[in-house]
């Protein structure tokens, strides 16, 4: 019974971590799946939001709100800049985009670490959300429970916006046949910039809300990028549902998995990805109709 409770708390932890991974990965997935841009500076966008949380959170609600506004705005800006930088490369394939965005990630990362120091900087959640509650007889941090709720709502909002709304239909149509949508009188460049900006904003927002779970510092950008790539490849590129499923799966692999199979812990993340890809190369939830 005790072991069961222990593992159940670990499952909850996995959900929190999985939803964090979803908010990070969904932007990368949209930008890649819908616009065909491989953005390797995605981890840097997480740093944008997380450092905003570090610099602006002072323990009050207002601090958090301010951090969210600044972090998201900076994310939108970063996404716009990246969209503008990668636009001229749209005909040159993923590898040139990868080289460019990785270069941007190196430069931006270096500037961040110059400004905020080379150590991992922790961010405390607002005072009201500190401390723990009893969960199955174990203390569990309140902030993580709140995070699960907030990130869950966010996931639902993104899903509705992209897969159920007219706007989302327009975006998906732009990707499927850009010329056609253009002929209908829509400025497709605006749509492309828009998707990039929203994807980047989600990563930055994930950084602001996720900073107390995964603090920013050197190496974290690379880690976020790799985790996000794993999540979207497992889930299926360009699919919001896939990103959610992939995030939750990797969340469990990284928590319940290491708890049950501690000796295999170093191999679990990529072992899971390898298994999924070998069985379903297009991911668990391939985006409809597209490769």
């Amino acid at each position, binding site marked *: 019974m005790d072991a069961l409770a222990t593992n159940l708390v670990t499952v909850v932890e996995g959900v929190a971590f999985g939803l964090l991974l979803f908010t990070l990965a969904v932007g990368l997935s949209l930008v890649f799946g819908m616009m065909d841009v491989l953005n390797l500076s995605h981890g840097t966008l997480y740093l944008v939001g997380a450092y905003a949380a570090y610099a602006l959170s002072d323990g009050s609600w207002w601090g958090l709100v301010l951090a969210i506004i600044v972090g998201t705005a900076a994310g939108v800006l970063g996404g716009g800049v990246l969209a503008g930088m990668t636009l001229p490369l749209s005909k*040159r394939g993923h*590898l040139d985009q*990868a080289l*460019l965005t990785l270069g*941007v990630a190196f*430069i931006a990362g270096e500037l961040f670490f110059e400004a905020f120091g080379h150590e991992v900087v922790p961010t405390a959640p607002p005072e009201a959300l500190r401390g723990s509650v009893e969960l199955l007889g174990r203390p569990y941090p309140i902030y993580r429970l709140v995070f699960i709720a907030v990130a869950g709502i966010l996931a639902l909002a993104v899903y509705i916006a992209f897969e159920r709304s007219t706007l989302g239909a327009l975006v998906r149509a732009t990707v499927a046949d850009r010329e056609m949508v253009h002929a209908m009188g829509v400025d497709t460049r605006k749509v492309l910039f828009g998707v990039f900006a929203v994807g980047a904003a989600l990563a930055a927002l994930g950084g602001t809300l996720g900073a107390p779970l995964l603090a920013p510092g050197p190496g974290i950008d690379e880690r976020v990028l790799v985790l996000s*790539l794993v999540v979207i490849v497992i889930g299926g590129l360009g699919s919001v549902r896939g990103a959610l499923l992939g995030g939750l799966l990797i969340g469990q692999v990284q928590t319940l998995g290491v708890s049950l199979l501690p000796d295999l812990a170093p191999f679990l993340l*990529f072992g899971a990805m*390898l298994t999924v890809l070998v069985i379903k190369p297009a991911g668990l939830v391939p985006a409809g109709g597209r490769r």
Partner: protein
Amino acid sequence: MTTQTTSTAGSEVDLRRSLRFGARPGRPSMVTWAVVVVLLAAAPFMLNNYQVSTLSRMLVFGLLAISATLLTGVTGLPTLGQAAYFGVGAYTAAIVARDLTAIGPVQVVLAALMAAVVALFTGTLATRARGVPFLMITLAIGEIAHSAATSWSSITGGSDGLSGIPRVIPLPGMDELRLDGLVYYYVLVMAVIAYLLVRALVRSPFGLVLRGVRDNEPRMRAIGYPTGRYLLAGFTVAGGLAGAAGALLVSVQRFVSPGDVGFSVAAVALLAAIIGGVGSLPGAMAGAALVVLVRDYIGTDLGGHGPLLVGAMFVAVVYLLPQGLAGVGAQVRRRIRWRRTEHPA
């Protein structure tokens, strides 16, 4: 308008050249090769020990970049997994050197074989996919290899790596190489042999099929080629080459650690291949040389700002050299031709 016509003329030239040699444009001429070979041979007389060992590392990473470009450029499968086979080769060579023989070519051959065997097995998984899923499978293979190198400490020495590797002996009966310049010559000779082998392979009918698969796989399959087997063979060869490069690394630095199997090495291999101009063997060599020069040679003096410079280099290459280093010649040619037509001398 003038630029328009001249660039058409340029592509005609390119087309003729490619028809004649069966390869992409931008290949250096015989004169260029002669000069490069002479300069590489003369380098130890002009450079100090540190510079020469940097040059040796450039050759090693150049071979690794060529192995990446075999997959990424020639075969059309972008890879982030070459560090795994590089590592298998390096650890094999280190163990052979320590426990069996200090004779370099033996280490290189065994390392290449071992890496090729591992590539054959992992390749059966990887070559089922194409494009980004292939990239991610190779990434997974690389990361799992890195974890194995760290965890399997009875063989690999764990995170602290394997040291105490004897100096390399180039041929039976010769003395061990004590001077950095002589180690460089050994690496140079081995690299040239490997390079020529790969070049012959790429120009062979086998290489032609690989490029055919890259350009249009369904058509190749329709003609009757078992494309999957060709890709697996290409994957295995590229793995073997990466293993050989790993063995040479061990001769240069007499040390191997999980860092040599890591993501950053795999990324350098892929990036060097892209910087070089995808599919070009000399371009991959030059790309690797540039990355090593900027990261390891200039970077160590910048007070920790090495990554900034590397990042700036990537961005600059993308915008200024759309076809990579291999395209530099064509780019300059176009510029000159433009000038000649605009202002006839």
